[in-house]
């Protein structure tokens, strides 16, 4: 192989006492697709931020085509030929495709160089088969198209090394194939690509070589990913064999949550179209689907944040008259929101405030409009103990807790009231393996105690492990429901593109 396009030598970066990267070596050759694999918090993002200039490394060298370079900011990185497609797109939705491409590019005689931009866009379309309407506002693009724009943007700036951070998380399986084809063709033309993921099958399918990070260090290198088993790679990622929590057989009881022909309107995102489903006591119903196919509206309706325009819902046999969090809680619903930091907690206030927030009006916490601070504190302390929430105490700022502890806190505040039904969205997104495992065990616990649980998740492995039945959403509809035993990634993947499934 030719000289490496980019080489990182002995990169170390700490945040306070935490070493996010320690002595990491990594190199990418022209035409090579390198997989960067690791659990959440293994240091993948930090490493790439060092490469892209967002963080200065504490130690280590960066070499571009054999020459040492210093990258202090994104401008330096772009100049060195490094382009990055972030997990959260860096686009301005109200500006056009072309404007998003031309940002930061010097103009021609004081004006934006529109003609030059169009020519360059055309050339990229010709060379890599990537094209978009230049005058469309970004808000009119689908998620996949926005990702294409991000890739075009990097190429537009002359990137020779492309970093993609978890690019498939937002894509449907068919779109993933298209992305992979484009990446392969770019590599064939001599570009280097770093593909960050924690999905083993994708890394095995796409990459030429892969580096596995664990606790900030290189845990292993795989030279022929396609010929290595997922189990071996998983072991490198976690440091041990993964044993899924044991799921005991359970006999579901009567239905505790029923949706009958629920439709919604006036909601940002995909509305629901005549969604009917049920969950029985002691049963976990998984909801699968590509992001943006109505999962959010479903979660909002079930948790009382959105009134449906048609249809009916019953909780524990009682018809829901008014869709409000308080009403549904009173019927025995527990809720855990998708976004812990923005919807779940009040980060600037003490943890205790967040713990009692949904039920501040009940007699345990207040009487005649007056708070009972002692009871609130005692409740929080009890939950901290019961769920092993690591924090200095109930009065600590909620925002100071780690993601896993926040999720435990949110779970604790619901489970303390023995819900008959629990609705959770993306329960383990962004959590490390230990915390995710704790959350999963709690769900199975609750299931054993007769609670009906709806788990909305984009993580198919998670759904397959937990669910007794899995319903698949596509364009606001439920296209089919599989029993846990029948469900496979392949079948679910097919249904996620809208193909009808069979119960």
């Amino acid at each position, binding site marked *: 192989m030719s000289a490496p396009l980019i080489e990182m030598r002995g990169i170390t970066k700490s945040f306070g006492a935490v070493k996010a990267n320690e002595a990491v070596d990594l190199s990418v050759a022209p035409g090579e697709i390198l997989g960067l694999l690791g659990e959440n918090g293994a240091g993948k993002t930090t490493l790439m931020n060092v490469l892209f200039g967002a963080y*200065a490394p*504490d130690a280590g060298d960066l070499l571009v085509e054999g020459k040492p370079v210093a990258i202090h900011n994104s401008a330096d990185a772009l100049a060195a030929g490094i382009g990055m497609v972030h997990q959260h797109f860096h686009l301005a939705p109200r500006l056009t495709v072309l404007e998003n491409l031309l940002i930061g590019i010097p103009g021609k005689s004081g004006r934006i160089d529109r003609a030059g931009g169009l020519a360059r866009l055309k050339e990229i379309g010709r060379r890599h088969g990537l094209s978009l309407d230049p005058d469309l506002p970004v808000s009119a693009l689908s998620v996949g198209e926005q990702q294409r724009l991000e890739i075009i943007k990097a190429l537009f700036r002359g990137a020779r090394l492309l970093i993609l951070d978890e690019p498939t998380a937002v894509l449907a399986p068919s779109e993933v194939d298209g992305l992979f084809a484009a990446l392969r063709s770019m590599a064939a033309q001599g570009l280097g690509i770093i593909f960050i993921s924690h999905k083993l099958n994708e890394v095995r399918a796409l990459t030429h070589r892969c580096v596995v990070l664990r606790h900030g260090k290189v845990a292993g290198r795989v030279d022929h990913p396609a010929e290595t088993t997922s189990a071996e790679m998983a072991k490198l990622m976690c440091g041990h064999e993964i044993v899924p929590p044991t799921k005991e057989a359970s006999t579901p009881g009567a239905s505790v949550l029923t949706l009958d022909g629920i439709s919604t309107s006036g909601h940002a995102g995909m509305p629901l179209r005549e969604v009917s489903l049920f969950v029985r006591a002691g049963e976990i119903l998984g909801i699968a689907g590509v992001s943006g196919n109505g999962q959010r509206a479903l979660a909002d309706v079930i*948790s*009382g*944040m959105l009134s449906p325009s048609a249809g009916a819902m019953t909780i524990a046999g009682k018809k829901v008259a008014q869709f*409000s*969090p*308080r009403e549904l*809680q009173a019927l025995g619903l527990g*809720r855990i*929101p998708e976004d812990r930091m*923005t*919807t*779940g*907690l*009040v*980060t*600037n*206030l003490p943890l205790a*405030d*967040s713990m009692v*927030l*949904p*039920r*501040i*009006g009940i007699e345990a916490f*207040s009487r005649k*409009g*007056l*708070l009972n*601070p002692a009871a609130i504190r005692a409740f929080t302390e009890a939950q901290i103990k019961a769920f092993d929430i690591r924090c200095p105490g109930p009065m*600590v*700022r909620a925002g*100071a807790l780690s993601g896993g502890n926040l999720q435990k806190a949110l779970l604790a505040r619901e489970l303390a009231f023995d819900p008959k039904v629990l609705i959770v969205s993306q329960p383990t997104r962004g959590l490390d393996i230990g915390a995710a495992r704790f959350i999963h065990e709690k769900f199975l616990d609750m299931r054993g105690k007769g609670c009906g649980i709806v788990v909305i998740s984009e993580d198919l492995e998670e759904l397959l492990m937990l669910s007794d039945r899995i319903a698949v959403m596509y364009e606001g509809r439920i296209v089919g429901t599989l029993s846990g035993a029948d469900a496979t990634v392949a079948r679910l993947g097919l249904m996620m593109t809208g193909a009808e499934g069979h119960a």
Partner: protein
Amino acid sequence: MFRLEARTSTPAWFNLALPLLAIAVALILCSGLIAIAGAGVAEAYGVMLSASLGDSYAITETLVRAAPMIFTGLAVAIAFRARFWNIGAEGQLLAGAVASCAVGAIPMPGYLAMLLMALVGAAAGAIVALVPATLRVKFKVDDVVSSLLLNSVIYYALMALIEGPWKDTFSGYPISPPIEDSANFPVLIEGTRLHIGVVVALIAAPLIWFLIARTTLGFRIRVTGENPEAARYGGINVQRVLLSTALLSGALAGLAGVGEVGGVHFQVMSDISPGYGYSGIVVAMLARLNPLGAVPAALFLAAVMTGAEAMSRATGVPAFLSDVIQGTALLAMLVALLFTAYRIRRVGASA
């Protein structure tokens, strides 16, 4: 190299230290203006201090001035807690003054008149504050802009009143008819202007503190302000909380106007408020939105205002220095607040 680093908690003594630091910085910066004006800095500040806090009469005058700013400070603090950006305390104060003046001019037993003045004045302020809150809730109108514009509307309405129907036909001056003598607030110390309204203001501060810290409404206000989305998810009717906050905030600002009419001026004129509504913002920020802190913060501003007039007479430095001090103190406080969220850390120079 220095770097800002996020703090997880703030030591309690910051609540006292930061405003004091901000005030010190403001006074130091403004001493430059005194020097430009050709006066001795020590002399000028000395006059200010003795005229505002030097003897018991001066102290009562400072208290009388502080009272409306305690009210507007509380009004702003409670509004900002809910992130209802009520910059309209000035207009709400004027509305309270006009309404209470109208009631106070009706002959009736004194205690009844005072009670009604307070109620009607508070209601007038509340109604005015309800306008920007409603516009925000129903029409998504930015509350800052609407409450600011409303200040102008109320001011011109007041002017139209005292230039029109309320104009003193005898002197031709644009001042309203005085309220009944019996409606004048009782003076606590003979020979001073220390009226009962000052005491009410001093009691209001702990009451509002209790409301915010210890009641479910206060809890809802705090949570709504910090994170409306989490509040909504938690079953709080965010719009209703905003409207309730607006009513409370406006009522407090209205009471500031009631005190000025019932205890100080006994009528309404164009300059009944030298910007007490805007000073309320300074008070609230110096107090870090803590109602208890509104009292010392308002006392400080009152002392500066009272002192500045005496200083102006003695040294010729324009009394507008007090406005500059207020603005500077607010800005200094905002910078000082950075220390609550961040600590400055020295990081080893490695580059």
